[in-house]
């Protein structure tokens, strides 16, 4: 097991100063090379979960098991690039061991070949997010964390990046945990879908996607979507 998350509880202080429970009895695991997608309504604690896995939030009861000295690559919702460094330098700083050729190769794959020397301000959100993805991949992560990787992109751009992501996950076999509110995105990217309940969030259902994504027929995808929707509808009652 590469990732084993067992969170007994996670509370936070709400604006009125009272503790609220964000997560409760949340368990999820990923094997090496698996891609998991956490799906749930906005505000259900998905990002909180991702921050706990990333080690940014240690104030919770439970345990997160990661490989020892494992490298984490993360793509935040906002790209979080250093505005005062070029795209290539941003990647090099995060991945000091990557050679210039490796970085150029990554930029090429992600359609950023002409932007290596640009500052992040000169990039659109779609390009900046690709640069953030290049940075996360450049460190050859043991675990790749993606927080709503396609949010606030226009539809055509989102589908393009989604297909690119699916290809990269397939080719590099990097273990990936994706957080998203969009079921279609989860089905396109993941081997395993964790459906979260409303707050306090726990994993309400796990759907395995057995067929390799590339070979999945439209019917199979529709059946899966239906299954997921039934699970989500059951939660509402």
């Amino acid at each position: 097991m590469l990732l084993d998350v067992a969170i007994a509880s996670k509370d936070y202080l709400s604006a009125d100063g009272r503790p609220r429970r964000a997560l409760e009895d949340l368990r999820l695991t990923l094997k090496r090379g698996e891609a998991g997608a956490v799906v749930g309504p906005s505000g259900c604690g998905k990002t909180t979960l991702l921050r706990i896995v990333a080690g940014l939030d240690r104030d919770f009861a439970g345990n997160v098991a990661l490989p020892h000295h494992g490298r984490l690559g993360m793509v935040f919702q906002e790209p979080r690039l250093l505005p005062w460094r070029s795209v290539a330098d941003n990647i090099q700083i995060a991945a000091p061991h990557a050679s210039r050729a490796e970085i150029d190769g990554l930029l090429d794959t992600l359609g950023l070949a002409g932007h290596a020397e640009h500052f992040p301000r000169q990039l659109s959100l779609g390009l900046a997010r690709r640069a953030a993805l290049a940075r996360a991949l450049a460190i050859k992560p043991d675990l790749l964390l993606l927080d709503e990787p396609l949010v606030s992109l226009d539809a055509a751009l989102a589908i393009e990046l989604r297909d690119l992501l699916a290809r990269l996950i397939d080719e590099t076999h990097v273990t990936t945990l994706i957080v998203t509110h969009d079921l279609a995105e989860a089905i396109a990217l993941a081997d395993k879908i964790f459906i979260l309940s409303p707050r306090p969030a726990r994993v309400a259902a796990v759907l395995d996607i057995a067929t390799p994504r590339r070979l999945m027929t439209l019917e199979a995808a529709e059946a899966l979507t239906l299954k997921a929707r039934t699970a989500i509808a059951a939660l509402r009652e």
Partner: protein
Amino acid sequence: MIRLASFAAMILLWQAAALFADPRHLPGPGPVALIMLEEARSGELFVNLAATLARVAASFALAMSLGSALGYLMGRNRLADKILDPWLVALLNLPALVVIVLAYIWAGLTEAAAIGAVALNKLPGAVVVAREGARSLDPALDEMATVFRLPLKARLRHIVLPQLAPYLAAATRSGLSLVWKIVLIVELLGRSNGVGFKINLAFQLFDVRLLLAYALPFVAIMLGVETFVVRPFERRVSRWRSDAA
């Protein structure tokens, strides 16, 4: 161009004022330049300018490095801020003259006392500005650095310093002018060379020409530092802001 014209107007105004004033009180640019030349020929001008410049550089470097480090600590750590803040306020409100006289009494009329006293006068200002800068550091980039496990050196160089650069430039600008003024007082009170020492001499001789002959070149040097060092540095570190698409 406009700067140059404005500068020429200043000289003209000086010349005009000198025409109507008692030359012992306000000599014109000509006589001052003459004395300046005389002092330069004997080498005295350069010896004293160099002595003052060295003191400015030493005390400025000391105050800025210590002040930035302390300010950064206070901006990032609430406990350190609480502990050190009263000290900071006390130091901010201590008159420069008191610090200088105390330093000379306690440490003797030495170079170390002089430089230390000047640095101590500049220190609180540098701390305040660096603390402001450290408080405005972007936590989102900090988290990014944590997830990607950037080593301390890379964090400082690529994340912290670029964000502090505008603050440090502001501290440098106000700091240099403050430091050189205090260096003159230190020299006047307890050193036997430097621009301040010469101005003391000019005061005793009531020689305004000598006073201006030493003060003006130093102002020119500081203007040069501002134009050729501080500004290009600022432009360089803010390059990423200007050429956005």
